[in-house]
């Protein structure tokens, strides 16, 4: 990370602490403003086609019984992040949990009991000082693989993504330009696959070689590193991005997070969202082209139905074709998994399904 960014982040951390110290010295109740990360405080920016965070803030006070602990935790995490940045080390959020966990003033109580607690405070600090997690030298667990027609430099090491064997390159959680740079790229598009199993299938079939693309998986909801990387592929390499997910409400949602950003991390949308991303499948209309799918459908469960109805209401799913897609799923009452394509034959997906979709430009946007 550039020392310029680091300095700015440290300045902001110290600035917030300095305000609190001043208030305390005046004998008043110190507070820190934390932007709300709730559905009520996200705005759908139709022009930019991303989810943005609103201006609503919650003042967190120390002298308030229900806020005192969180207030203390906020500055505990802030001071640990300062340590990390100053010592030029990056820690996983689990490491940070252990770094900040200690007993409180001779009681059995700990500063943090569960990692969930510290994870939440990390997000609070991010939004409070307007710094990305990566800028605080924090990283999430690695969770994703990449192969494809591209050469990448990772912390000085050159990685040829064409020679990654069956496992692929593990995508780190911090993929900022200071760490990751792109070199030779012959890929024409990027394909993000929801499931590791399907990613392996496509890698084995050398799909990326035949169709000149970059193949990624995030094992479900793609982690921040992958989303940031997709964002850079689009902005720096001008590559189109296709998202290939299960045909169920969670698949739709994964697509929408990649495309517009998530409610929880709305503050990072501008650096993470890929508004150009297109939905390649599976679509609830695929069964019309491939009747064999009728034999492998799965009945929608109660929670699928209610989630689908929720998604129908989101402003970023208001396009006609999306309403039609989701309503069709609800109408048929069934869903499909990516692996179901193997019903026809094992390489059906790489030899027929995907090439046809790409050729026909059969996408949802």
């Amino acid at each position: 990370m550039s020392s310029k960014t680091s300095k700015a982040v440290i300045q902001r951390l110290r600035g917030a602490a300095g305000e609190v110290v001043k208030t305390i010295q005046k004998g008043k109740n110190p507070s820190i403003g934390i932007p709300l990360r709730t559905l009520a405080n996200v705005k759908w920016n139709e022009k930019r086609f991303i989810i943005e965070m609103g201006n609503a803030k919650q003042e967190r006070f120390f002298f308030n019984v229900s806020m005192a602990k969180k207030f203390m935790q906020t500055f505990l995490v802030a001071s640990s992040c300062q340590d990390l940045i100053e010592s030029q080390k990056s820690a996983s959020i689990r490491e940070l949990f252990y770094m900040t966990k200690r007993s409180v003033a001779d009681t059995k109580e700990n500063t943090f009991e569960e990692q969930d607690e510290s994870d939440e405070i990390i997000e609070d600090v991010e939004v409070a000082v307007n710094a990305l997690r990566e800028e605080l030298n924090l990283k999430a667990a690695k969770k994703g693989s990449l192969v494809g027609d591209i050469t990448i430099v990772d912390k000085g090491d050159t990685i040829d993504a064409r020679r990654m064997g069956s496992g692929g390159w593990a995508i780190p959680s911090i993929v900022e330009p200071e760490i990751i740079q792109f070199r030779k790229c012959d890929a024409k598009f990027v394909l993000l696959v929801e499931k590791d199993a399907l990613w392996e299938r496509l890698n084995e079939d050398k799909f990326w070689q035949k169709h000149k693309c970059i193949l990624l998986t995030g094992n479900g909801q793609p982690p921040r590193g992958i989303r940031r990387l997709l964002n850079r592929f689009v902005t720096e390499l001008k590559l189109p991005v296709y998202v290939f997910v299960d045909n169920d409400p969670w698949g739709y949602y994964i697509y929408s997070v990649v495309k517009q950003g998530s409610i929880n991390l709305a503050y990072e949308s501008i650096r993470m969202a890929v508004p150009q991303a297109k939905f390649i499948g599976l679509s609830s209309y695929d069964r019309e082209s491939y009747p064999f799918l009728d034999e492998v459908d799965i009945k929608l469960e109660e929670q699928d139905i209610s989630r689908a109805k929720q998604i129908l209401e989101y402003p970023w799913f208001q396009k006609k074709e999306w309403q039609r897609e989701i309503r069709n799923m609800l109408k048929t009452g069934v869903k499909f998994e990516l692996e179901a394509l193997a019903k026809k034959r094992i390489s059906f997906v790489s030899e027929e399904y995907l090439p046809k979709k790409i050729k026909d430009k059969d996408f949802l946007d």
Partner: protein
Amino acid sequence: MKKTKKKPRRMIAAHAVPARKETLPVLKPVDAPETDSSAEAPLPKFRRNAVEMATKQREISVSEFFSKNRHLLGFSNPTKAMLTAVKEAVDNSLDACEEAGVLPEVKVEVKQVAEDRFRIAVEDNGPGIVRAQIPKIFGKLLYGSKFHRLKMSRGQQGIGISAAGLYGQLTTGKPMQIISRIGPKRPAHYFEIHIDTAKNNPEVLKDEERPWEKEHGTRVEIEMEGRYSKAGHSIEDYLKQTLIANPHVRVEYQPPGEPAATYERASDALPAEPREIKPHPYGVELGILVKMLKETKSHWVKGFLTSEFCRVSPRIAEEICQRALIKPEMRVRRVSREEVDRIFRAIQETKIMAPPTDCIVPIGEEKLLAGLKNLIQADFYTATTRTPSVYRGNPFLIEAGLAYGGALPADEPVQLFRYANRVPLLYQKSACAITESVIEVDWRNYALQQPKKSVPIAPAIFIIHIASVWVPFTSESKEAVAAYPEIMKEIKLALMDCGRRLQGHIRHQRRQENELERRSIFEKYSGILAQSLHELTGTSASKLQEDLKRIAKKTTGLAEDAAVQVALAPVAPAPSNGNDGGGNGK
């Protein structure tokens, strides 16, 4: 046997209502046995005929009656007997001291003589008793100064101390020992007295002058069968309860085989002297009215009414006579039984002003508080004195007080200390109007737990005092107050008044606890917060922590004043003086 059974009932009835003249010590059977003039005529074949039965019918004395019915006077078991004896002697001492205007100093000694035999001695600094009266006061049941007047006092019937002596005599055969002196220049007289149970007369075994260090006062010693109890109804508890309601009393107590304890007085002011009053017409029963008519010195009915009762003016007397269709100038001796009936009814129908209430002397809120604080350790005290009220023509007044918190047990029913004319009532708690009134108040309104039909559960002691010229007890042993609605209403009002103040305290306390809890939360986290802020800004962590502590104290300021709370009524209702027009005795 039938007739002897009847007599005790009549005797008790006579005590329960005010009477005037000394006619009670010995009761003659109503229909004394007489020999039939036609003695020769044959009698029906009963198992025993009337003549045979007559030979067994004879006069019985009160003493004899008592020796067979000791439970009626509080001597039903050895533990209770000892306590009753101490109680009667102390009551007498306090009454005597107060009447003489001396701050009472009482010494109580209990010595164990044998396994089940004790010697109790009660000594006071009162005015003493003149030599001639000593045998009668201690050696004759129902002899005394208090029964014949309507004046607030501890003792009422003059039965207590002689009954205690009689109990000792019955269980050990030992006489009562009395020493009394009426002034520094007079000799102290020592007596040993037996009671002749058949005649209810004192039998003096010894009468001599003895040297005594006390300038004036009386000492009574009684040896009796007994059991010394430290739990439950103990002598010590009785003395403590007495001192709460009588903070002007100093007591030295020497229990058997233990070091002596001294209870200093919490107040140097003697209670004001109660005034004696005449009976109020509303409080008089028909039988008593008949008796009063027989014994009056007045000649005319109108004069009788105005001179023997309070609140009867000549005009009111005329009104009563008019209603009873009797001439006011009618001679008292010639009033027929039927006419008494009419007078009685006329009294009830005539509007008569309530009796004067300055004859009642309350303990007073401040003194009650002083007494409570002197003997009970608690966090909160309060007391209230009601204005006097009237039941059946008898003025009375209720006082209540309470101590809450501190070391008092939190999960037990509230302890009730009941008092009648400053005397603690120790037995028959559940038969008493005071207990009943406590139960009838809904204490949940005052932040206390209360199981259905029970006394509330709280770390508290409640004190309820009824002061009256004639406290209506349910029995001769004076252990429980009878449930007159007027009395219960006043008790409840007094308790509710205390309850409201207690509720304020409990609320305050709860808020305070909350505040302390809040403060502890802030203080808990301030260390780590100060350290984190220090690392980010370089400001001294210890200084930051001090500042945080200061703000924490400021924001939870309520937790500061943890001192003992005392709530006094904003305006203490002073007992009205005599000319109260309000309240019409009914």
